[in-house]
């Protein structure tokens, strides 16, 4: 495994980059799209929920757009090799919070973050932190598949190239990334054709492969399945499950069943109206997914997950 693996000079510290055999495509125990059908349907059923060390930690994070406070005082841990889901109604600040985890909010004029987001103990918002380096380690997959208008091969190779990764054999790296994203078999004969010729679901897996190719620690997914049909969604969910063995994943989703199906931990956000009639996103509850969906502590969580609200 390690012989064809490219090494990155900066990623040699304690960050776990060891992979199990890459061909472990979607052998998730009891994969079922409808969780209520068999047993609990929660990942907890396969004992993969663990209180691993937090890879990232949000402490009292507020995100502002100009003077508007979009998200207020969020604190939660992102545990290593676990899938953390963020759910909640529209406008509750879950995507905004997600984007604060790899400084994508920097790209929005007037956006600013207070509080701290630590990654391996380092505050991402410290003055000397380079957002470029942050985004290389904390990758992101977007709501709408957004492959580059280039070939499939070049989509994967782009990240390693711009990062100046020393890649001994780019072909291997492309194959490895596509294999892990469970896309290799479908595209191996047309690596040179345009990424835009793929179907929506394939494009989204390509975007995941592209993210994996730069060997990040954390993958952020912002409603990655909302533009996809149920079959493509199922494939992405299987993929997330497989990937969580090697990566830490944070997913924002509108789909509560999806959160219940794939995540180990869930954070429920809601929009609160303050005394001045301004809406702010707010974290209501964070706990293990099974607990949050079966025995939530907060009344608002219960109302939301039972469909009485939102």
């Amino acid at each position: 495994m390690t012989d064809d693996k490219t090494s990155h000079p900066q990623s040699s510290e304690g960050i776990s980059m060891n992979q199990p055999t890459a061909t472990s495509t979607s052998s998730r125990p009891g994969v079922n799209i409808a969780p209520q059908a068999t047993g609990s349907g929660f990942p907890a059923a396969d004992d993969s929920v663990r209180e691993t060390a937090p890879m990232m930690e949000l402490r009292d994070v507020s995100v502002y757009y100009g003077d508007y406070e979009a998200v207020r005082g969020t604190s939660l841990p992102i545990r290593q090799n676990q899938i953390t889901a963020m759910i909640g109604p529209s406008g509750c600040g879950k995507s905004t919070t997600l984007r604060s985890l790899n400084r994508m909010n920097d790209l929005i004029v007037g956006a600013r973050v207070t509080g701290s987001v630590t990654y391996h103990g380092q505050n991402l918002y410290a003055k000397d932190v380079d957002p470029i380096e942050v985004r290389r380690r904390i990758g992101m997959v977007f709501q709408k598949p957004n492959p580059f208008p280039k070939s499939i091969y070049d989509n994967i190779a782009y990240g390693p190239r711009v990062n100046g990764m020393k890649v001994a054999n780019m072909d291997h790296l492309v194959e490895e990334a596509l294999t892990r994203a469970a896309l290799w078999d479908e595209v191996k004969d047309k690596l040179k054709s345009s990424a835009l010729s793929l179907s929506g679901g394939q494009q989204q897996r390509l975007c995941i492969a592209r993210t994996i190719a730069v060997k990040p620690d954390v993958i952020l997914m912002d409603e990655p399945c909302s533009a996809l049909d149920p079959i493509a969604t199922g494939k992405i969910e299987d993929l997330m499950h497989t990937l969580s063995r090697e990566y830490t994943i944070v997913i924002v989703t509108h789909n509560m069943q999806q959160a219940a199906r794939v995540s180990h931990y869930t954070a429920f956000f809601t929009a609160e109206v303050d005394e001045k009639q301004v809406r702010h996103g707010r974290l209501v509850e964070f706990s293990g997914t099974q607990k949050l969906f079966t025995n939530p502590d907060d009344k608002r969580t219960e109302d939301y997950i039972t469909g009485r609200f939102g």
Partner: protein
Amino acid sequence: MSAPSLTTPRAQQNPSGVALTQSRRRPGETLFRITLQACLLIAFAALAALLLWVLVKGWNRLDSRLWTEMPTGLVSRINGAGVQSALVGTLWIISLVALISLPIGILSAIYLEEYADTTKWYNRLLELNIQNLAGVPSIIFGILGLGIIARALGLGFTVITAAIVLSLLVLPVVIIATREALRAVPQSIRQASYALGATKWQTISRQVLPSAVPGIATGSILALSRAIGEAAPLIVLGAVTFITFNPDGIDSAYTALPIQIYAFIGRSQAGYTELAAGAIVLLLAIVLVMNSVAIFVRNRFEKRW
């Protein structure tokens, strides 16, 4: 009329009772379409008449002498004359305009579109003024060039002066066209690039610019074809009415096709008007070729999202 007035009486006889056939003429629709077609026809007829006129008028002169022979001031020799010096002058000027205006225009547009913080007043002022500059009459640029470039900078009535002034003239057009092209590249592409750890310059140079090339090329070529037909600024910039030698450098005296046409057409002798018509056809052909290249580039390389 019975209750469902959407249907014709004939259609109501349809046994199913559901009739979707067109019930009555909609005069407004027809009238609007005819108006649109009439407008198109007017524009097209004017162009066709112009083309036809110059073709008929200049027919006798449409041969290789047009570009192999020099113009002349002697009526007796006009029938064997051409416009070579003007053609070469035009090619000199337009090449220099491309060299000056395209890099400056494209880089300015990249700054405005990708780097400038549009919440800052000076950037907004800059934007507003570029829009305004695009609307300034070309003769004003000519006078500016005469005062500053020809006289104050001492470049004189030379090819380079003409090229600089025409570059300034088309710069706003290049900037605006390039900005449009950059804006057409979806934000999601930039985000995807940043999310992979690319820097701003990497994102612009490897994703945004390549995707915007068709739009930039099209806009640039159209801007250059505007510059090629400009006569007004050159009149004040001392383009000579005819010269019998080709410009041999950027500091050479020159004339250009529009100026040559203007000079010939003002003379009463038939030989001159014929040669002017021939030169117009030549100028139109150059513009047409450039616009065809623009269309080809756009169709060939345009990205569909």
